[in-house]
């Protein structure tokens, strides 16, 4: 693989070089470099590499770091999701304090599709469009035989053999659908039912009502749709001088598995361009006095390998398109304001609210209200 030297970020033993991009008008004499959509489209490659039900890896080649970083930041902080926001504790006699339990509940990823929901703005009343209600009602008790006639025959019976409901799990969330939610949200609940929230012993109980709302990751990480959204630059390794075959194995071990191909018949040492992307560019090879002048390590400045893990109702392949939609909304909002300035007067708009009364509150009881922050 032969890459234009201008696209490379040099990696030396103790320094990096040529970090900043130089594709700006006026940087090189007699070269244009002004924005050209046709040229940009020609040089742009987007390629999906791997996809599972929870994560995706894709390459974006031919964009500047500022653009790649904008999408990464939006995926983490500005794609909305639904998370538990308000926790009404009617009873909690477990050893987990109300505020700790509320925090744990807030972090449960929910399978509610955010497109069916609105944000609850300040002053709005809860409706079926902006609030999903859950309930937890759990009490721990002894099993009839107290685990004495243990099925496993062990002298120390397990918790399962001794107690009923000795763990509060995310699957204990009971959805209380309101209004049109039953048709729209189908089956709202946690994405993973086996998250342990509290451990209980006989006599302990929890009774909680939960309100889930739409929000953004920039307000609280519980609203972030991703576990990770990162990118790295594609590595570029060039062998400049032949590697002595006797030391081929040592050379191979300086790189990630698969990056260096050793041909025992032809007695050659080569870099496998397909597996080059897997290298960590550890610079181990530069520590060897014999190897250090034989290779050139670098990364390609405009080749971004994104790795995104979804931890929300979005499928992993939906996250980049969602981020692009939000980026376009941000651009549109700024453009409206800029055009307003051009006309001499800036304008803004407000939004009205209102709707069905879907979620009811219980009164008269001694309720501790917790915000799941």
């Amino acid at each position, binding site marked *: 693989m032969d890459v234009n030297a201008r696209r490379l970020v040099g990696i030396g033993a103790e320094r990096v070089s040529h970090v900043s991009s130089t594709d*700006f*008008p*006026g940087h090189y004499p007699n070269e*244009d*470099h*002004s*924005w050209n*959509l046709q040229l*940009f*489209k020609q040089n*742009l*490659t*987007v*390629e*999906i*590499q*791997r*996809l*599972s*039900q*929870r*994560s995706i890896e*894709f390459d*974006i080649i031919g*964009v*500047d770091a*500022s*653009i790649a*970083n*904008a*999408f990464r*930041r*939006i995926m983490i*902080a*500005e794609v909305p999701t639904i998370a538990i926001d308000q926790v009404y504790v009617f009873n909690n006699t477990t050893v987990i304090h109300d505020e700790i339990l509320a925090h744990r509940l807030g972090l449960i990823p929910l399978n509610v599709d955010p497109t069916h929901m609105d944000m609850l703005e300040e002053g709005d009343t809860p409706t079926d469009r902006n609030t999903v209600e859950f309930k937890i009602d759990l009490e721990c008790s002894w099993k009839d035989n107290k685990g004495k006639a243990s099925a496993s025959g062990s002298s120390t019976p397990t918790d399962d053999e001794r107690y009923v409901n000795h763990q509060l799990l995310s699957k204990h969330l009971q959805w209380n659908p309101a209004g049109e939610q039953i048709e729209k949200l189908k089956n709202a609940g946690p994405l*993973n039912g086996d998250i342990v929230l509290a451990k209980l012993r006989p006599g302990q109980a929890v009774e909680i009502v939960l309100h889930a709302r739409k929000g953004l990751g920039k307000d609280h990480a519980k609203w972030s749709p991703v576990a990770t959204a990162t990118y790295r630059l594609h590595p570029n390794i060039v062998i400049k001088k032949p590697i002595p075959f006797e030391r081929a194995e040592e050379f191979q071990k300086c790189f990630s598995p698969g990056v260096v191909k050793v041909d025992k018949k032809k007695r050659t040492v080569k870099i496998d361009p397909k597996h080059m992307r897997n290298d960590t560019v550890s610079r181990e090879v530069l520590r060897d006095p014999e190897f250090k002048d034989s290779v050139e390590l670098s990364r390609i400045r405009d080749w971004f390998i994104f790795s995104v893990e979804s931890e929300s109702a979005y499928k992993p*392949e939906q996250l*980049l*398109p969602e981020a*692009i939609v939000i*980026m*376009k909304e*941000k*651009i*549109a*909002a*700024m*453009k*409206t*304001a*800029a*055009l*307003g*300035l*051009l006309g001499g007067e*800036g304008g*803004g708009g407000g939004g009205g609210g209102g709707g069905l009364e879907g979620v009811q509150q219980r009164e008269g009881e001694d309720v501790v209200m917790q915000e799941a922050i």
Partner: protein
Amino acid sequence: MATAEAPPKIRIMKGAASDLSAATYQVHDESHTMGNALRWMLMKNPKVEFCGYSVPHPSEPNIQIRIQMYDKLSSLQALIKALDDLDNLCDSINEAYIESLQNDDYEKWDEKS
């Protein structure tokens, strides 16, 4: 003091040239996300002499974009052009991504949770 009204999305800060050939714009409720992307797109404009952005304080949701133009051109026009170009850029990336997704030429694997 009267209750604070919602600040305007974009405000031209004082000290701007009267023909707007050099101006600093304060953008409300934006961050590095838009700041850096817009800075890059403005720098792609050969009529822009200088462009830079800053987040003056991490706990205030504002950014400031400084634009200086050659030939006494309007920095506001350059800003609008950069926003349009950025919008086109988003569309082309989305198109290319959707195409790659539909080509279906990638490894599918089963990830255990």
